[in-house]
């Protein structure tokens, strides 16, 4: 049995650990969400359109869950949720590493596209684009979307 004098150090250390646990993920998250980078080009909706229209082999990847994809997505985008993204799945969707790929998810608060981009980069894809505004920007600008 612990006495009163034994409880206080336990609480103190417990609280310290909780605070550290809360602070540790922040730098990790920020490492996965680059705002701009020499290796990742961020595009907006019009940039995405230009990319797709300009480059015949450009691919648009919707990194959201399938349920979101079904409710509405950019016409021509394939659905590859970040949770299912790895080099293998990417290679099935985009066999060539030189093919331009545009990743998007719901919007600026969404981590899925960033995660998928990190994986794609790790897999060696050379032309990775990040539609940072995501589906929210697409809808806000009144561009058509497709329901499945």
């Amino acid at each position, binding site marked *: 049995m612990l006495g009163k004098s034994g409880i206080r150090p336990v609480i103190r250390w417990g609280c310290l650990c909780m605070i550290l646990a809360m602070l540790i993920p922040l730098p990790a998250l920020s490492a996965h969400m680059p705002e701009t980078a020499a290796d990742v080009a961020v595009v907006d*909706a*019009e940039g*995405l*359109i230009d990319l*797709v*229209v300009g480059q015949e082999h450009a691919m*648009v990847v919707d990194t959201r869950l399938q349920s979101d994809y079904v409710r509405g997505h*950019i*016409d*021509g985008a394939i659905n590859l949720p970040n949770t299912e993204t790895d080099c293998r799945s990417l290679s099935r969707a985009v066999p060539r590493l030189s093919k331009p790929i545009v990743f998007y998810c719901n919007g600026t608060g969404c981590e899925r596209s960033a995660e998928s981009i990190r994986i794609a980069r790790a897999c060696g894809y050379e032309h990775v684009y990040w539609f940072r505004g995501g589906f929210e920007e697409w809808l806000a600008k*009144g*561009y*058509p*979307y*497709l*329901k499945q």
Partner: protein
Amino acid sequence: MNRYHFSMRASVGLIILLMGLLGVLLAVTTGNVYQRFVLDNQREIFEDLADIKVNLILSETIQSTADLGMSIQASEELRKVFRERDGGKINAYLHDQFHQFVVSASLLKLMQVYALDKDFAVVGYADEDGGRYSPRDMPCRGLLQQARQREGYSRLKILSGLCASESGARVAVIVPLGGLRMEGYLLLGVDPTPNLVHVEEEMGMPLRLLFANGGLAYVSEEWNALPGQENLLFWRYSLTGMSGEAVYDFHFSADMAPLYAKLDETRQIMFLIAALSTFLAMAVSVVMLQKSALDPLARLTRHLRRVRKDKKHLGEKVTVKGSQEITELSERFNEMSSELHVLYKTLERMAYTDMLTRLPNRAVFYDRLGQAVHMAQRQNTPFALMVMDLDKFKWVNDNLGHHVGDKLLREIASRLKRCMRKSDTVARLGGDEFAALLPGILEYEDSRHMADKILEHVAQPLYIDGHDLSCGVSIGIAHCPVHGADGDLLMQRADVAMYHAKNQRQGFMIYEPRLDEHSLNRLDLERELETAIGNGHLEIHYQPKIDLREGKVIDVEALIRWRHPLRGYLLPEQFIPRIEQSNLIHRMTQWVFAHALRDCASWHARGLMVGLSINLSRRNLDDTRIIDLAKSLLSQHGIEPAWLSLELSESVMVADSDRVSQVLEGLHGLGLRLAVDHFGGGHFSLASLGRLPLEEIKIDQAFIHKMCHGNSETMLVRSMIDLAHNIGLKAVAKGVETPQARDQLLEMGCDRAQGFLFCVPCGFEDMTAWLEKRLSQGPQVMPRQS
């Protein structure tokens, strides 16, 4: 005209009731206004609601159409045949879309689908009926125009619009075909009516939907089954198209019966509240009014009634609690009551007190006399009544001034009070007349004892303003019930006794029936004389005055006679003394002057130039009006003042007051002659003879009559004649009835004589005849003023 008086309570109640009625009226009016306001408000709410619902349904319809379009264009098959521009296959594919779920399930009523190239040229077409493309049927051409004008990225965006068409209305949606690598467009035409009629369910009220061209788009069964229009609210909502044109007219009707019922219920509650509020306000107001105003006012009113009933409550303070105004009113009321109390006491004192002597006045005395008589009748309690009149008071008043007279009265009053017992009442009846009420005195001996006591006290010497005075009093006593059981009778009898006591200088006298005869004569005299003046019962007799040496007529003396209808001729000495005590003396003097001067003027007119001599009373000299009277009458009859001689009694000459001197000087100043009558008969101040402007002295006839029979009177007459001559006056002998007396007087040097020897007093006609006869013997000269 009737005037209605409301109590304050009723007035306040009525006002509150009126206010309540006004409140109810206001509630009714407000209710009606509110009802209209509610209806207007309800209509606006319905319109806003319909706007929201209709536009929501329209948006959903457009979205569904856009989804359908996007779904169709996403087909690789369509895109392939589109790229190949294979019209037949495109049309076939498009026609298949009418069997999609949304269409077959009537979620959308798809009417036309167009496949357009990038320049909006029609590449394929399909409609519900499998008809052929006709440019005329293309919906919402304005939308195509709008789409053509777009550039850049906006060409990728979906365009939609509502517009009127020949067949009713259409929703047109343009979606890009071919995804982001756009190759053309799809234009979908949808009839939105089936979707829009759902607004009836959304609104929960019957709908009648019309197209802009007036055609009926839809009408619900409930619309036709609507009840009477009394409780229905009709309103409409217009849906406009993309160009601002009217497309639909939504007609709704709402049953307002529940609302009206609610309003009625609210109104009834308001009525109830208003009635209860009014009742409560009335109750509270009446209670407050009762406490703050009515109760205090009632208290003040009760006190006023008490004061009215018994004045002794005047001045009592009333303390009330109420509103500020009422409290102030009560304070002012108390102040006024105190002032009135003081005033009332003063008035009471003035009304019941003789202000000079502080004794009870005549009114109080008669009241107490009445009470005493009443008690005597009921309880057989005797009392004595004394009426007292001061002797020589008039002399004091006339000669020493009123202020001395007033002090004398106060002193006498004080002495009388000291003589009285506590139960007695002594009062001043007026002038120098007092009265006393002595309860319990039955025996004459007791009243005599009291009268002696009064006489003794009053007779004590007085010293007022440097004058040693002695004042007597005459007392008349009457006993109740022995001498009467009536206040007036007792007063009259005491009065009679008092006059007898005064005339006989007895001090006091108890009433006896034998005194009545004289008394009645005296008491009636004044009234009768007043009647005599009016009825011509007074006459003037004249008696001439003769110059003894020359035998000429000097003047004629006017002597008043009273031809009494019952008592015969009354001589002046029988009524003048009494008349002198009343104001009638002035009227009588006026009468004598007027008639005697008229007669004198008549004689002068006939050439009978003779002087006139008139007797004046002492009372005439109190008033300067006698000067004006003589002056005006002399002037009126055109008689020179020197023809008129005024005879003053010796008692007149005793009066040594300023007023008398002033009047005598005034008369003398007019040019009248003055004489002293009855000289030697009374007490007389010899100093006055030299001081007053006299012409002659008339020796009293008592001396002349006795002179004939005794030496002492002869010596007195001789002395008086010598006295007159020594101070430059003429001596006149009165009552000369025999030639011996005339000769003796002539021998003593007497200047003039008057008596039966020459002429008995006679009326105007006889005197006129006598004068005519006498004056024809020789001329007359006007007497000269000495």
